């Protein structure tokens, strides 16, 4: 009885706690390039059947409906929102933004992502000591398939189709050194976030679909720009207020259920 009320309220507190964590993480990443906001999806729990439908009353009629009591709520999962974030112009030729669908593929250790690959939309690249194009993070994940800038060159440029050119001092035309590969997933919301703005393939996301920038279903590359976080601060703050109030109301329901149990407990002196 009142125990169910306690459980319902407790399930709500725990679910709202998760929702609060998700929202706080979104807000914390408001300036993280390529970050995609998540939301917590709620669903109601099962119902206890206290009286079955179809029971006969004294008049020998069937009860048309049963008596069910719900057991609360839970977070069924968190869902990534892959809406494109706003572009930020940086002027750096190796800052790449994908306009449209697709991810850059980078190499990671096998333990992190299946096949040693992870995917990202945070296209802030740089060149490492061996001339390879790598992510400009502390781990320096190497772009896959690798593109190496070797020898003497004065500038780098990347066109909309992901072709990387270098300008040699003596040459007239820029030299093509490689083309970026893009990856797509049938269900990007099923990807797993592993931190560092990276996502890895899961059973739910489906296998990676490879392609070139500008091909059908793949976006084009904008050099000199990166994609900012797609977190909308207004939405997140409104969510935060709603979650907090819902939390307070459910803690009141714990108090009320406790009062009930206390009244019952005092029956026996």
């Amino acid at each position, binding site marked *: 009885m009142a125990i169910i009320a306690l459980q319902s309220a407790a399930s709500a507190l725990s679910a709202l706690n998760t929702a609060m964590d998700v929202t706080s993480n979104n807000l914390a990443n408001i300036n993280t390039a390529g970050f995609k906001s998540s939301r917590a999806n*709620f669903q109601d729990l099962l*119902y206890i059947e206290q009286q079955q439908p179809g029971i006969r009353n004294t008049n020998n009629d069937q009860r048309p409906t049963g008596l*069910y009591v719900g057991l*609360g709520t839970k977070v069924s999962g968190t*869902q990534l929102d892959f809406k494109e974030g706003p572009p930020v112009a940086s002027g750096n030729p190796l800052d790449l933004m994908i306009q449209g669908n697709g991810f850059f593929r980078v190499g990671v250790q096998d333990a992190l992502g299946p096949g040693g690959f992870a995917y990202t939309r945070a296209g802030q690249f740089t060149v490492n000591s061996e001339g390879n194009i790598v992510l400009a993070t502390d781990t320096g994940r190497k772009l896959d398939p690798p593109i190496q800038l070797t020898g003497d060159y004065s500038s780098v440029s990347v066109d909309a189709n992901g072709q990387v050119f270098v300008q040699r001092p003596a040459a007239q035309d820029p030299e093509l050194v490689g083309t970026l590969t893009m990856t797509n997933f049938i269900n990007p919301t099923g990807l797993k976030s592993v931190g560092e703005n990276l996502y890895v393939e899961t059973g739910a996301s489906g296998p990676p679909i490879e392609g070139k920038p500008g091909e059908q279903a793949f976006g084009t590359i904008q050099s000199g720009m990166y994609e900012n976080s797609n977190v909308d601060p207004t939405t997140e703050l409104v969510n935060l207020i709603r979650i907090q109030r819902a939390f307070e109301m459910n803690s009141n*329901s714990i108090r009320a259920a406790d009062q*009930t149990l206390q009244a019952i407990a005092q029956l026996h002196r």
Partner: protein
Amino acid sequence: MNYGFTMGTAGVIAAMHRQDVASNNLANIQTVGYKPDTSFTIPRQAARQEDGLMNMPSNTLLERLGAGVLLAPNRTSFTQGSLTQTRNPFDLAIQGDGFLTVSGGADTASGGDSLRLTRDGRMTVDTRGHLVTVTDGRDILDETGRPILVNPASDFTVHTNGSITQGGSEIAKLGFIDVPNRDSLKKVGNNMFSLSAAAATSKTVATGNVLQYNVEESGADPIRAMMAVQSAADAVGTTSKIMQIHDDLMNRAINTLGRVSG
């Protein structure tokens, strides 16, 4: 003599049930497409009337009081929840009457149709390319009851009548139905309802509109739910007081009045 005591017990049980239902509503104020339950009670007749024992000796005075309360089935309020805009094309909300149809799989509880109904239109595409619910990955069905295959690379538009177009041509029409007798729907959790066999045969095409880029917020009213939780707690407090008074009366009757002087 114990009449008031049993009536008090019935009152406490009913109030605790009210509290359970209201606190479930309150727990689900963030659940998309949730429809709140309202609990009801009915007066209980005296045992002699309820069980049809007309020859049983009775106390006419007490019998007129009835025998406390019984729990009546909950009813679900299907009033429209408020709509919130989102940025996800796979978020659908229903404005007006109607439900989206979801596959119940092998799970045919209550002997009815294996169809499930929902007002939670948050969807995603699974690895087979099927349109599924985001909460537990069940297939969302078209009007003929088949899963909907979408091309995830193409644009995705849902029209108010439930028709889905990709690249300008219609690929499917959402199963979008209504049931005249909503009391025949049973909540099964996961934001879904199951239909009884009778309801499955009486389903009609829904009259509401499907709105893309929207979700329908929970229909639970937080203020009402909170008041109900608290008033049920108060009711338990006062009713249990009545039980205590009756207990006290019995105590005096047995231990004070009934003592054999000596």
